[in-house]
């Protein structure tokens, strides 16, 4: 069903593009799609965003153009709402990071849905599959990667003293703010600090060559997300949600934000789906049901994985050994391995020849 929905969504975006190809800005000029004036079209369910390239359409002409194309797009079946806006400046300037083939963000609308657990296990599963993997814990408010991976201590600088050396756990190179500050101390990040501090985590870490860098973002929509999307060209976002409506509401907000930033959503991971009683085996839908699947179908992205609420998973996190590493044959480990496989496929991950990395 989810594949089907994905196909439909692609057609909706393509339908919009098709319609926009009939619009020209000069009588015998190229159409606005061909000329690049339309930077991107992103559909989130029935909400369609058309991002205009401000380098090609001057500020004074954007408004009339938006007024002209909005009714055209609105007339398409399945379109509920149209937003035409200039693409954020930052999108064009985002640098490709040297030596990192793909950057994928892991995000959730609400906290506590298991985003970091998913990120850490995904990283370990990708590493086990032979990819060179980095994990950047950008959750500035509550860095969890150190605990989940059983890492402690401080990050050190490289021999030349210019860059920070990531720590390594289970084949994954890891950088977290948790390595830069003592435990139990309040970390107060003003917006300005985020603007300065986060870029450093991207540029000043000596990752070596990576096939993929996973970025564990904080939940919600905040300065940190904008800063991250500005800093690097993200290949996409993996969205983690609990099945309840509360979580789905917040996730939708996050999806809209990434759509605004022209970052595609690669798929949804539904976590905490159900809890099985250890005595009688009754299944309780503790955090609602089917929200993730519903969201994936509605927005038209695949449901990449679905995990039950497993107390053992929380225990493995507290113990610092990701379940993918500690119990590779268990149910959650197999789900994470499958998730890694489908993600690698979706972003066209290639396994470069392993290089020695010190």
């Amino acid at each position, binding site marked *: 069903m989810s594949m089907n929905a994905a196909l439909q969504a692609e057609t909706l975006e393509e339908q919009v593009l098709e319609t926009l190809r009939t619009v020209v800005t000069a009588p015998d000029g190229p159409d606005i799609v061909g000329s690049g004036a339309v930077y991107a079209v992103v559909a*989130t369910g029935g*909400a369609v965003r058309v991002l205009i390239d401000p380098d090609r359409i001057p500020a004074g002409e954007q408004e009339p153009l938006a007024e002209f194309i909005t009714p055209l797009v609105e007339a398409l079946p399945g379109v509920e709402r149209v937003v035409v806006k200039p693409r954020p400046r930052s999108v064009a300037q985002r640098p490709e990071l040297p030596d990192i083939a793909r950057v994928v963000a892991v995000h959730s*609308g*609400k*906290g*506590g*849905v298991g985003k*970091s657990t998913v990120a850490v296990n995904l990283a370990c599963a990708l590493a086990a599959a032979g990819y060179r993997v980095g994990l950047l814990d950008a959750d500035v*408010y*509550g860095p*969890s990667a150190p*605990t*989940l991976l059983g890492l402690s201590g401080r990050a050190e600088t490289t021999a030349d003293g210019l860059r920070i050396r990531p720590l390594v756990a289970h084949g994954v190179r890891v950088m977290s703010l948790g390595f830069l500050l003592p435990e*139990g*101390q*309040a*970390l*107060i*990040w*003003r*917006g*300005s600090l985020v603007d300065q501090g986060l870029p450093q985590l991207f540029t000043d870490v000596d990752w070596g060559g990576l096939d993929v860098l996973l970025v564990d973002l*904080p*939940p*919600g*929509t*905040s*300065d940190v*997300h*904008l800063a991250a999307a500005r800093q690097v060209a993200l290949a996409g976002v993996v969205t983690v949600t*609990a099945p*309840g*409506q*509360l979580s789905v*509401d*917040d996730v*939708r*907000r996050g*999806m*809209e*934000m990434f*759509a*605004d930033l022209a970052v595609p959503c690669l798929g949804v991971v539904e976590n905490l789906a159900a*809890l099985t*009683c*250890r*005595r*009688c085996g*009754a299944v*309780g*839908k*503790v*955090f*609602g049901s089917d929200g993730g699947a519903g969201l994936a179908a509605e927005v038209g992205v695949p449901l990449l994985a679905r995990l039950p609420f497993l*107390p053992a998973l*929380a*225990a493995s*996190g*507290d*113990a610092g050994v990701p379940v993918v590493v500690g119990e590779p044959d268990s149910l959650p480990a197999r789900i994470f391995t499958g998730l890694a496989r489908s993600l690698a496929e979706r972003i066209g991950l290639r396994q470069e020849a392993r290089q020695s990395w010190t």
Partner: protein
Amino acid sequence: MDLKKPFPVPVVSAAAARRAEDPWYAEPQSPVPGVRDVVLVGSGKGGVGKSTVTVNLACALAAQGLRVGVADADLYGPSVARLLGTGAGLAHGEDGRTVPTLAHGVHAVSVANILPPEAALAWKGPLVAQALLQLFHEVAWPDLDLLLVDLPPGTGDVQLTLLEQVPVSGALLVTTPQRLALADAERGIALFHELDIPVFGLVENMSHYVCPCCGEHQPLFPEGGVRDLAARRHVSYLGSVPLDPAGQALADGGTPLVAAQPEAAAAQAFTAMAERLRAAVELERRALDRSPEAGGREAHAAFWEQLLD
């Protein structure tokens, strides 16, 4: 929905935000009209059930006869409106100020009342401050004994702005027994203590799961270290709340567990907690009243001025 009057009315720059003629502008630490005590509800980590605890505590306090309000300051993930079942849109009084919703005996204002659920709320620092202060000074709060403020998780702009601008009686923190959540809760306690804000206590949420079928108590997270943390940081342990699937279903439907099933184990836990919180706030109030009136206030103001510089 009154979209012509979006919540931050109107959005202005940080420099302009300081101008006293802005209707929402109030001197730092000026009291919220009609409100006796402002109590913050925070959590280090997200998803530990902070909003659920806030709403249920508010209902329990209201049931005990207090006049209670909830300000949803979780700008990044407002959920109070959904939890209380109040729809989108707020009324405006004659003076143009927003009138809180009233449901289950609790007056509430949430940014979700005004913004469509899918609106991308990527708030920048100065806008955060403005929207927050509107929650206190642009809202026609009725006379309240207690205003609970549902904070976003963590220690960021919202917490700092609130503590700078609003006279806060104290705070409580919600956590689960997970090591991850505990570490973050400890950061939260440290923040409040550093800024000289009393911490009324720790709430342990999702301590265990009660099977609705056989009643089996099943721990969800290893080693309950919440009591240890409370002891280590010298704050009181307010109690634990089990995870109740019925509560989740009710929450999605907009009825707090305390209002719908007051006899449920989790609801009783909230009621007991509400009593402890009331006592703690009362104690703090008496301590404040005893302290030499003018001197205490002035010292407090001076402290903040130094911090702001």
